[in-house]
């Protein structure tokens, strides 16, 4: 898999102890492993993709406008998962309620009644593209 290198210098280093100037060996020197957020958040390199949330129908599932979601196609869709779905010619994120043969795509915004659950039958062109595994948001 590709992408971009990790900028270890800033983020990860601050998580370790500061420099020990001189003298006796630091007990921290045995700790070679640095905390790597990628290892935590990306379980399968080949199947993990990032998307940015555009809209407010998922705010009750903690997905706010501008958040980055981590989507892993290796995760089998399960009942109640939040997933990037492909329906009616476009991508969307919904909570997926699986039932016999079909599913209901449920928006998560109880304050806005404009968002309605979308039932999908076996004949509908519907595709769970990938399951959302993490949400990255700025506080």
């Amino acid at each position: 898999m590709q992408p971009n290198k990790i900028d270890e210098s800033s983020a990860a280093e601050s998580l370790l102890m500061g420099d020990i100037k001189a003298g006796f060996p630091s007990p921290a020197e045995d700790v070679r492993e640095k905390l790597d957020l990628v290892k935590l958040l990306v379980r399968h390199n080949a199947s993990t993709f990032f998307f940015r949330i555009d809209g407010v129908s998922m705010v009750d599932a903690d997905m706010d406008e501008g958040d980055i979601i981590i989507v892993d196609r290796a995760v089998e869709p399960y009942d109640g998962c939040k997933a990037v779905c492909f329906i009616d010619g476009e991508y969307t994120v919904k909570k997926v309620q699986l039932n016999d043969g079909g599913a209901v795509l449920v928006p998560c915004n109880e304050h806005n009644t404009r968002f309605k659950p979308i039932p999908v039958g076996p004949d509908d062109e519907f595709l769970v593209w990938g399951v959302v595994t993490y949400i990255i948001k700025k506080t």
Partner: protein
Amino acid sequence: MFALADCNNFFVSCERVFHPELNGRPVIVLSNNDGCAVARSNEAKALGIKMGDPYFKIRSIIERYNVSVFSSNFALYGDMSGRVHQVLRQFAPSVEQYSIDEAFLDLRGMNIPDPDAFAKQISAECRRLTAIPVSVGIAPTKTLAKIASKLCKQYPRLRGGCYMHRPEDIEKVLRRFPVGDVWGIGRRSAKKLDGMQIRTAWEFTRLPETSVRKLFALPGWRTWMELRGIPCIEFENQLEPRQSICVSRSFAHEITDCGLLCEQVANFAESAAAKLRGQHSLALEMAAFAFTNRFKENAPQTFGSQLSVFPDGTSDHRILVSTAVAATRELFRQGYAYKKAGVVITKLIPEEGHVGSLFSDSNELAKDSRLSRSIDKINRSFGPGYVLFGIQGDGHIKMSREHQSPHYTTLWSDIPKVSVK
């Protein structure tokens, strides 16, 4: 036993990953500078669009049938290629990346009870994890595996996987397989064979060994053996990444125009960059070269090459392309007819920490600033009139790439938006 995994209409499939609505619709991808079609969906092929068709020639078809058009996006293709490769490595210990969209798997010594199911499983897993459709052929030799993978594309009922091993099956397939489409049979050999009334792969395998050796030398003999089920082509185990990358081509028509030559070299640099990314390396040195046809005795001859160095290493295609173009302008001489050109990356180092993709904004910024620096350099050296690329607001190359999709998987600013409205 070998497997060949070949991504179907790869560039088109990469675009479809982020545009599933284009499944079942005609889609093409254009070469650098939007010159000609370099990838076509099956639906586009059915409309008669051929590989290499110039864009202007097929414009009317595009409009009439509402064909979706993309400029090539090598950052995306390189990334998706790496993902597919990673999936393939789960299935066999040695995988040879043969090109951006093909890889061989060495299955020798592995215990595979049902190779046909295995082929289908590899295909399904690539599709599930990366969304890229892949055709997997398994056969006793690499050459036959390639043919088996082509069968998968012809016959959807094979579900992406085909195991071809019984001699009678192989014969049946080879009897219908054009010899010119066999891996390793070049245009010249195909022409020679055509002159001998040999049109199918099967007819080729019926030639006596001695005449194959005489007429087609060692490479032709290897292909002949491989078609007969005897492995002769080495498996190139690339646990060690390649130490140099060369992309070059002879031109059908000699090139006398600097702009045209630059366009070609830009293409070569793009695919070299994709190869670099594919093997997770960074280029330290790259040379662009071009020369005239030395067999034309009365024509003026020249050979030019121009070396560029990247002290920190780069695999950013924007940098490599702009540098290669600048180098080509430097080496180009008016009044010569160039027959061949290319780029060769002579020194490369492994890219570290490539597995991650978080926290790279600062990295991308660094790349962008390096990009602007090199473009500035071209500007300074050759004057604004010479510059082929400019930078658009978002940092993309502006070189007739009207239809380029975003760098969905390699730039934070470009990750796809998902509408939750």
